[in-house]
């Protein structure tokens, strides 16, 4: 300690300065806005076909899914293989809500936000429900429990029977509703076990979807860059040190499980209000894994990377359509090769060398000498 200081003068603080992260966040948020804006323009000028247009809203809900999953996997550092389960809850609860209320609440401007809130909250409750018992678990054990949980949700949704008639709602689990209890003249089936949910008003469109993407990004990016976010990341980096720093692990884990599930639920509501049919079997572990792939390739904890990876990987099979039946095979090979190139020590070394060669800066020269 050469020059001992008792206080930092205001001058020191001013010269050091504090990095503002606002600019970075705005860029991250602008990426999807610009991307979808350009796509929409290309579609309306007829450059891209309507088939492509149909992919844009699904892409939005995949982005919401991936960003919210990255909160759990990248920021909290816990592997989840059941994210699609929460999406399923949102899709069904929000969808059923809109189905039932479409005659009473005729304006989609009121109905859809309500559906979003209700679907999101229902998913968040499920997030906490599974979160509380598994607080003791971590790593592979947590992963398998989340996978199992996602499958349970799917399975439960496939066993719900719901109908409405003049007397109100009728519900049954695992067995069809007794026809004697229903007023056949006014009966409307909402859910019939393994059959898909149909007839949800199509309240979602690209603008709405994009607004939800932006809201999701603002909330999650601001959360990460706050006291709460630091607490969450400290648990990820070193649980024992976080505890010694007085961080309440339980509280922050539950915040993440709840919030991450909430946004997955929002993505689900968006899906059921855009797709004509909502099938529980679409929300299986394959979907969860697909989203995990987006997150890992985009970069753990990196929201901008996640958005870009989601767009590219979602579009990739479509771009490969020319290859027809080979496309999923190519996709699989691309995935394996990308993982190896990104994570193999030899490839990492080669990439560093290439970088140094391309940007011949001082550091590179020093390394060469």
């Amino acid at each position, binding site marked *: 300690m050469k020059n001992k200081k008792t206080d930092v003068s205001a001058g020191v603080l001013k010269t050091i300065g504090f990095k503002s992260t606002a600019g970075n966040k705005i860029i991250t948020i602008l990426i999807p806005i610009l991307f979808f804006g350009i796509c929409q323009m290309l579609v309306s000028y007829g450059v891209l076909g309507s088939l492509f247009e149909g992919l844009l809203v699904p892409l939005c809900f995949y982005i919401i899914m991936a960003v919210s999953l990255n909160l759990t*996997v990248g920021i909290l550092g816990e*592997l989840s293989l059941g994210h699609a389960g929460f999406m399923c809850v949102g899709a069904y609860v929000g969808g059923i809500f809109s189905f039932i209320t479409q005659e009473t609440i005729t304006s989609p401007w009121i109905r859809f936000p309500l559906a979003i809130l209700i679907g999101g909250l229902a998913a968040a409750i499920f997030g906490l429900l599974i979160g509380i*018992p*598994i607080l*003791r*678990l971590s*790593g*592979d*054990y947590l*992963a*398998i*429990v989340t*996978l*199992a*949980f996602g*499958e*349970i949700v799917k*399975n*439960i949704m*496939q*066993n719900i029977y719901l109908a409405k008639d003049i007397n109100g709602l009728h519900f049954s689990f*695992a067995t069809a509703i007794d026809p004697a209890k229903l007023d056949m003249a006014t009966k409307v089936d909402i859910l019939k*076990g*393994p059959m898909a949910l149909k007839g949800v008003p199509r309240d979602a469109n690209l603008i709405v979807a994009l607004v939800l993407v932006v809201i999701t990004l603002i909330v999650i990016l601001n959360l990460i860059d706050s006291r709460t976010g630091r607490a969450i990341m400290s648990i990820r980096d070193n*649980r*024992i040190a976080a505890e010694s720093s007085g961080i309440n692990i339980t509280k922050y884990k539950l915040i993440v499980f709840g919030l991450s599930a909430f946004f997955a639920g929002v993505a689900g509501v968006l899906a059921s209000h855009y797709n004509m049919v909502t099938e529980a079997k679409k929300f299986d*572990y394959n979907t969860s*894994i697909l989203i*995990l*792939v987006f997150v*890992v*390739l985009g970069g*753990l904890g990196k929201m901008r990377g996640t958005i870009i990876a989601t767009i590219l990987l979602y579009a990739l099979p479509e771009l490969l359509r020319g290859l027809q*039946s*080979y496309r*999923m*095979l190519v*996709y*699989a*090979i691309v*995935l*394996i090769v990308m*993982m*190896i190139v*990104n*994570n*193999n*020590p*030899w*490839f990492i070394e080669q990439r560093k060398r290439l970088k140094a060669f391309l940007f011949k800066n001082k550091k590179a020269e020093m390394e060469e000498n």
Partner: protein
Amino acid sequence: MFISYLLSGVSLGAIYALIALGYTMVYGIAKMLNFAHGDVIMVGGYVAFTLSVTLGGSAWVAIIGSIVFCTLVGIVIEKVAYKPLRSASKLAVLITAIGVSYFLQNLALLIFGSNSRNFQSLVSIPVISIGQATVPGETIVTIGVSILIVIGLMLFINKSKSGAAMLAVSEDRGAAELMGINVNKTISLTFAIGSGLAAIAGILMCSQYPMIGPYTGQMPGIKAFIAAVFGGIGSIPGAMIGGVVIGIIENLSKAYISSQLSDAITFVILILTLVIKPTGLFGKKLKEKV
């Protein structure tokens, strides 16, 4: 009735156990979740199908051919996809394994098409009656074969030099390497054995449920994975008992509660088990040293 449900549950569980052994051995030695393991079952089934139905080979040709092929597939997968990632994060390896799983499924889809093929039982075995209950011969064969394999595997691991090497690598890879054990060879051997077991599981499964498609391996793979975790991943007796328990639970809940809910029931029991015992029935407790 109960007896026959129970027996078919045990035989289903025996198949899960064979697959779970592969999961658990690979986890114990390579410390990775080999998500593509379930798809090796499907590969085994298709190879047996091709050899026996398409090429008209005998049952033994089909069985041995399938085991040999899957063993090679396991070794190749490890060399090409997992070995370059030995030092990478667990998650990177998991995603690669998922890529391998997609690859195997889509390759099968390309070669055999999306329609399920009807798979006649390779060996026809008469129905056996125990008291009033009748049990299909395949059930008895499955249970018998599984017991023999597990005994053989236990002998191999506990008595042979390669088995000792496997135990050493699973205990501490670095130390095993220092003691002159060829870690790469041991990991290859583990993948070979695991995949061979998956092939046997595939043949047994196709004999009992005579259909095969590109995604046939997925659900049994997941169930076996769950069985391995249930028993305590990394533990061989755990995988066996886990497999049998999961098989029994699944069959009994199908028979007595609801066939649609049997998966949910199995999964709920898994979650409850882990909540009470976070490392599974036979898992080792790991506490981080401060």
